[in-house]
């Protein structure tokens, strides 16, 4: 056993070569004992082909320089080929203004990016290789493809147009300086007239630098606006014309003539005619614009009133209202003072004078006056009784005294007294009317001899013979009226009698509807009745002969002038009873009297109306 020990003991001797080799082999084995992974996986993908990438920008591709005069929109297209487009960017002077993930699209260069000057437009897109590689997946394999253009920009707004106005060939013309840059869009001309009418024109031709307003006639204001619109901005200026239509007028009261000076026609191209109107009625038409001075005889002068004179300017612009101006001028007829004022006035055709009645206390006077000047000619003193009458025809007047009726000659002053009552206690004569044949009608009342109360009397007396040709008593207050020539009598109960010499014949009972206004003085067989119209009846037949109408209510029949006089507020209308001619006078005097064409005012003046 020992040798075996000896055999094996040296085997643990480290310094023996065989043991060293064993140790070395073992150590190498241990040194390689750690598993170190060495496997690899290679993905056989290829790199992207970047030569396929391209960019395009509208039709500017072939240009390096782009001239811009206005905001503009571009369309672009990026072709990323096989790569993956990440985003497309538009940069203006290195400032990103648009970013999109689409390969194509539109972007606008407007404000505030766009400014006058030289800018750099850069269009670029960023792609990843889309190869699927590790770098691609990590976003480290991107490519920027770009192109640049030089932008020469002029986006200054247009200057405000300077508008000038002129009249060319009789038309209103506005002009403005032309806009010559290529970013011109249009001119817009707007005319705003003072009567809210508007007219607008648009010109897309930059060489059009004026506009003729063929409708403006003047006489009203107009505001013209001119707008220059470019692709950049719009600028508007305005100019106004304020041609007020007016005229001047002077009035000569001596001949009631107005002198009208028409305005000069500035825009003769639209002129049609002037029409001068008096109180709304066309009087003069002027077709020659150079005839600017016109004379007009005022048809309706009056008293204390004005006449409206207006001028209408008719033009050839149907869309525009007629231009008109009006003036109220005082067309008062020159008045004179009444030399001798009276309370009542009558016209005596026989004397062709006006007879005025004046009274004071128990005294009255009948004053004969000149029918035109009202100068007193003569006067006769009479008793101021309850009644008097100055007939239209004859030289006599009649008045009452307590117990008698007196006929007085207006020229000779000779008086003739007629017992007028039949009892001691009766009233004096009243409701006296005299006729040219010296018949006179009157009434009175007295105690009823047969019983209580009073009894009324009416009578027609022939003062030439002193005979009574008509007599009636009753219980109704009578209002007998005898016609001016003494041929008809209207008695109580509207009975009409025809007087023939010393007898009366009853014609009948007058039944005409309306207010009795008496026998016509210059033609006594006609009866006036005021209704809605002025009705004239035949006294012989009591039938309606005709009617006359005029504005307002019937006032009187101015016998010497044969005018039916009507009145309404501020106006007096006359209608010729034969020709029916209507005339109007502007008069404001409710208490005025018209007689023989004279207006006798309440304040003691008189004017001649006709």
């Amino acid at each position, binding site marked *: 056993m020992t040798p*075996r020990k000896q*055999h*094996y*003991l040296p*085997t*643990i001797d*480290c310094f023996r070569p065989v043991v060293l080799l064993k*140790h070395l082999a*073992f*150590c190498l*084995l*241990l*040194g390689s*004992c*750690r*598993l*170190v*992974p*060495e*496997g*690899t*996986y*290679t*993905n*056989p*993908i*290829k*790199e992207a082909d970047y030569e396929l990438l391209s960019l395009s920008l509208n039709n500017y591709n072939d240009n390096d320089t782009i001239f811009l005069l206005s905001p503009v929109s571009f369309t672009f297209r990026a072709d990323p080929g096989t790569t993956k487009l990440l985003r497309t960017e538009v940069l203006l002077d290195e400032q990103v203004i648009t970013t999109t993930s689409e390969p194509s699209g539109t972007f606008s260069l407007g404000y505030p990016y766009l400014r006058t000057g030289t800018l750099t437009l850069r269009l670029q897109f960023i792609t990843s290789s889309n*190869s*699927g*590689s*590790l*770098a*691609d*997946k*990590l976003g*480290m*394999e991107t490519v920027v493809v770009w192109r640049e253009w030089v932008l020469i920009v002029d986006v200054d707004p247009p200057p405000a147009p300077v508008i000038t106005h002129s009249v060319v060939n009789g038309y209103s013309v506005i002009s403005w300086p032309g806009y010559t840059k290529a970013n011109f869009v249009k001119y817009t001309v707007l005319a705003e007239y003072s009567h809210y009418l508007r007219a607008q024109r648009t010109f897309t031709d930059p060489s059009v630098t004026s506009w003729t307003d063929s409708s403006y006639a003047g006489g009203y204001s107009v505001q013209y606006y001119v707008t220059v619109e470019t692709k950049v901005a719009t600028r508007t200026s305005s100019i106004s014309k304020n041609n007020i239509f007016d005229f001047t007028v002077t009035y000569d009261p001596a001949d009631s003539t107005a002198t009208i000076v028409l305005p000069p026609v500035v825009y003769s191209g639209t002129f049609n005619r002037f029409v001068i109107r008096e109180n709304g009625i066309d009087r003069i038409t002027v077709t020659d614009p150079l005839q600017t001075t016109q004379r007009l005889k005022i048809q309706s002068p009056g008293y204390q009133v004005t006449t409206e004179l207006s001028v209408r300017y008719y033009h050839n612009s149907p869309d525009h209202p007629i231009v008109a101006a009006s003036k109220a001028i005082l067309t008062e007829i020159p008045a004179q003072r009444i030399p001798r004022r009276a309370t009542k006035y009558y016209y005596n055709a026989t004397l062709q004078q006006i007879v005025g009645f004046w009274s004071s206390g128990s005294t009255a006077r009948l004053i004969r006056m000149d029918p035109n000047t009202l100068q007193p000619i003569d006067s006769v003193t009479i008793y101021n009784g309850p009644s008097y009458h100055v007939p239209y025809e004859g030289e006599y007047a009649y008045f009452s005294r307590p117990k008698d009726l007196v006929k007085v000659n207006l020229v000779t002053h000779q008086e003739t007294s007629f017992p007028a009552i039949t009892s001691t206690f009766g009233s004096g004569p009243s409701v006296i009317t005299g006729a040219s044949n010296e018949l006179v009608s009157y009434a009175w009342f007295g105690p009823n001899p047969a019983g209580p109360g009073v009894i009324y009397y009416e009578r027609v007396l022939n003062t030439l013979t002193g005979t009574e040709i008509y007599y009636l008593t009753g219980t109704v207050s009578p209002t007998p009226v005898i016609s001016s020539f003494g041929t008809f009598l209207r008695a109580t109960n509207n009975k009409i009698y025809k007087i023939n010499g010393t007898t009366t014949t009853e014609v009948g009972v007058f039944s005409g509807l309306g207010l009795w206004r008496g026998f016509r003085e210059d033609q006594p067989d006609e009866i006036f009745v005021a209704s809605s119209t002025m009705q004239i009846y035949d006294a012989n037949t009591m039938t309606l002969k005709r009617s006359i109408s005029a504005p307002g209510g019937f006032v009187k029949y101015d016998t010497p002038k044969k005018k039916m006089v009507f009145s309404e507020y501020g106006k007096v209308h006359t209608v010729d009873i034969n020709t029916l001619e209507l005339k109007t006078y502007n008069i404001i005097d409710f208490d005025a009297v018209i007689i023989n064409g004279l207006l006798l005012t309440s304040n003691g003046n008189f004017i001649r109306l006709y």
Partner: protein
Amino acid sequence: MRLTLIVTALSITCATAQVRLWGAFGYGTYAMSDIKEIQSDFVGDFPVTPQITENFPGYWNYEIGGEKVIDSTYFVGACLGYGTTAGRVQYTDYSGSITADQLVSYVSVGIPLGLILNKNRKRYTFTFDLRPAFVFSSMSIEIASVLGGQSTKESAGFRSLNLSIQPSLGIRRKISKLILSLDAGYHVTLLGGRVFLDSNREAYLLNKKGDEVKIDWSGFRVTAGLAIVL
């Protein structure tokens, strides 16, 4: 250090014939289920689709130890073991590469504890060894990338301790003072410890489900050894 230990162990001389020293190397397979799961997670975390080029394959392992035979029937002793495996997830293309390695190794301190099944035989003996052991594991995760001409590398180290047994059957042929041995067994991890981060021992590895990760060395073992009877 490891080399020095082995040389020293082989240089020990024992004065008694019941004691024998041995060294062995073998081949083992490793379950590494949790670690493989982490590796799979690596695959999903790559920006590209890599491949697992190493999936913790079986590999060589080494042992040295000594044991004493008692009554020609039992043996007991002590041993040191060392084993290693690794996993790799890798991707390479024209633009670069990225590699995630998991290098795992262990050093076990075991107690050979077994029976000699045919103690009367002189030429061949058969053994059954229970071999309980403490397994000290270390794992290094290294992630390297080459991209655009630049290389980066990051790594992190982990450690854990397992308790295991490795029931094995063996056959031995004694030739003079030498004994050739061949053992086959199965390594069973009885208790897996947490995998702590080297740089922070309060941090340990969890999988995506939130479960603790174990380094599981379970697997078959085949070992061939040479012992010297002292």
